């Protein structure tokens, strides 16, 4: 976590309010609507109601119907409109109700938003931030649980960001909106309200006891393309992002293995320096994500790590991911790669 702003606030004796992830995101949107009149927000139920997860609650009332509004149920239309608005000069921040429903817009994202700058040699650009709740953990079944991030990382021209905590969520979202290229901003819905300490069936530490819920008021950014070392360790490096960062932490603590946990935060462009530095130090690596395994982003991470660190590796890199199945409903927690599976992988690389 980039704690510079927090440090400054603390040093100045300023009280830092506690926020959950949803509040942090809403705060970021509020700030950008306020300081840049080219920012517009729209999506299914995102206007009057404030979104099914309430991320945009109150914003229409505050900024008016031309700045924050409901859209027809057409993800293609939402992103296509955003591309046109961006070409005009706005900075649209569309919301897709669930990341599962982003596929109808995939062509407008991958063929249009991502390539507009390229094909016009910079004449037209697409500074769009597409927000969408991602991941499982709320019994959403096949179509409210998926993690499609890998698809976007295969598209040149896009950036892909996934925060794991309120502080980062606000800072990364502001940075994404201010970025001049299209950003896919995936919000782990399991972390929206309550925090998650890795287990679904144990009590959680409330956000207020998580350092990362200290979300300074006003404008700050967490830079895109920079990972965070959220736990330092000597024995093995865990690469992860989003909800899984918390699972990784639980696994490290429960196994007692001294793992260094890297929260990637931005998948593309990737902070491979931070990764390589850590793996060269630990000599072992476990990659953790919730998305299905085959051709998930874990494959790319492993390819990069073996390229940069092969001679340092003392064990094959392990991957802990969702199974290669659609996200089941009743078996949600069998599908979800929890601390036990991560713990097993940690032990495996330690024993190799």
């Amino acid at each position, binding site marked *: 976590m980039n704690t510079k702003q927090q440090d400054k606030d603390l040093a100045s004796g300023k009280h830092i309010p506690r926020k959950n992830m949803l509040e942090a995101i809403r705060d970021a949107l509020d700030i950008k609507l306020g300081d840049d009149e080219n920012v517009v927000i729209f999506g299914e139920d995102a206007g*009057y109601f404030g979104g099914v997860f309430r991320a945009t609650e109150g914003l229409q009332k505050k900024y008016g*119907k031309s700045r924050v509004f409901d859209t027809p149920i057409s993800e293609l239309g939402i992103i296509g409109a955003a591309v046109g608005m961006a070409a005009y000069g706005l900075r649209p921040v569309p919301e897709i109700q669930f990341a599962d429903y982003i596929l109808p817009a995939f062509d407008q994202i991958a063929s249009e938003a991502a390539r507009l700058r390229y094909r016009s040699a910079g004449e037209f650009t697409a500074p769009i931030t597409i927000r969408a709740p991602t991941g499982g953990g709320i019994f959403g079944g096949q179509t409210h649980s998926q993690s499609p991030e890998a698809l976007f990382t295969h598209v040149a021209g896009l950036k892909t960001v996934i925060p794991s905590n309120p502080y980062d969520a606000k800072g990364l979202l502001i940075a994404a909106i201010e970025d001049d290229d299209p950003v896919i901003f995936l919000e782990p819905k399991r972390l929206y309200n309550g925090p998650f300490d890795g287990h679904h069936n144990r009590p959680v530490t409330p956000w207020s006891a998580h350092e990362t819920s200290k979300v300074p008021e006003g404008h700050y950014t967490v830079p895109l393309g920079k990972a965070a070392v959220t736990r330092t360790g000597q024995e093995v490096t865990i690469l992860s992002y989003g909800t899984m960062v918390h699972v990784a932490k639980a696994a490290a603590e429960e196994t007692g293995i001294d793992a260094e946990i890297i929260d990637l935060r931005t998948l593309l462009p990737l902070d491979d320096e931070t990764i390589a530095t850590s793996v060269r130090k630990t000599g072992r690596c476990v990659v953790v994500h919730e998305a299905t395994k085959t051709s998930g982003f874990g494959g790319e991470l492993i390819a990069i790590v073996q390229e940069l660190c092969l001679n340092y590796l003392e064990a094959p890199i392990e991957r802990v991911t969702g199974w290669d*199945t*659609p996200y089941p409903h009743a*078996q949600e927690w069998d599908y979800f790669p929890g601390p036990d599976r991560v713990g097993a992988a940690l032990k495996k690389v330690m024993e190799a």
Partner: protein
Amino acid sequence: MNTKSLSLHVPEPTTRPGDAPDFSYIDIPNAGSVRRPDIHCDPQAMRDLAFDLIRVMDDEGNAVGSWNIELSNEVLIKGLHDMLKTRIFDERMLMAQRQGKTSIYVQCRGEEAIACAQRAVLEKGDMCFPTYRQQGLLIAQDFPIEAMICQIYSNAKDKLGGRSLPFFYSEKEFGFFSISGNLGTQFMQAVGWAMASAIKGDTRIASGWIGDGATAESDFHAALVFASVYKPPVVMNVVNNQWAISSFQGIAGGSANNFACRGHGYNVPALRVDGNDYLAVYAASQWAVERARSNLGPTLIEWVTYRAAAHSTSDDPTKYRPENDAESWPLGDPIERLKTHLIAKGAWDDARHNAMIDQLKTEVKAAAKEAEKHGTLGKGPVPGAAEMFNHIYKELPPHLRKQRQEAGV
């Protein structure tokens, strides 16, 4: 050149929380006032029907006009039974969800007539491509509700093994296509199924379903384009219940305030029908089914109705529309209206009505109890984790075999 500033038009519903309900935006013609064209009618020659509203029951409950096809009391009482059973079923499942027996539930309160009456017109072998709000299609066929509840509970007898969201039924034998969570996709698939039936020289037809909100999806257009081109045997149902979660129908429909007329651009004949009038739904469905079965091609029907309850158990409509809005809905309640008609006909009375309700409540309760023996979400003899690995492919490929092993299931 005009140099006045432009401005964005953002539609708003007539009312919001705190306002008195106002449905003045809907014109309601008298029952019986709309003509009934021949099924061979050129779509262009019946464009007026998309802007009208086919209604059969008048305010006194009498069946009137050319769309009154004089259904037998037996058919009507079965219809009443189906709608009541659907509603009672929904109420029970709503309660079950509140008790934590399942994760989420979606009712069709106020819209029961549409699925129940259309299903009554369809034949065995025909295939419906429903959304999550057409449980009436199963119930009207006397599909065993215990099986539905087992699925809702994701329990050991859930034939889908807990994989899918609670109410995402799949019942091929009952002409009920597997429900998808992705809005609209099934509308295009219904057209494809109907094309297949035509390709094979079959006699079976398809019935596609979509909500007012979801008509904005791309699949709606694709379905109409393909329907327009290949003229396959399909009934294309748009259930306009005025809401898409928190968005009123104007957000998908613009100022047209009409989804039937979408058909015109594709030369697909369109009807607009009072969806809370069982007799009208039955008659209009029959017209469209006959057209399809006679190789005359698709019909688009907008069913005008009202989503009388929350979108789902995760939703709170008091945040975006006046409370008790549904009570002021000018087309009334489909069950009450059919009851009134039957009583007006002398074929029904309050005592029989209440008896039917009691009997259905008992039946539904018993089924729920029975289902519960096989577990509820995450409790009891629930489907095992191994189920997760079944039916991804016909045969489990090596990489998934390995993963199943790794999962230890």
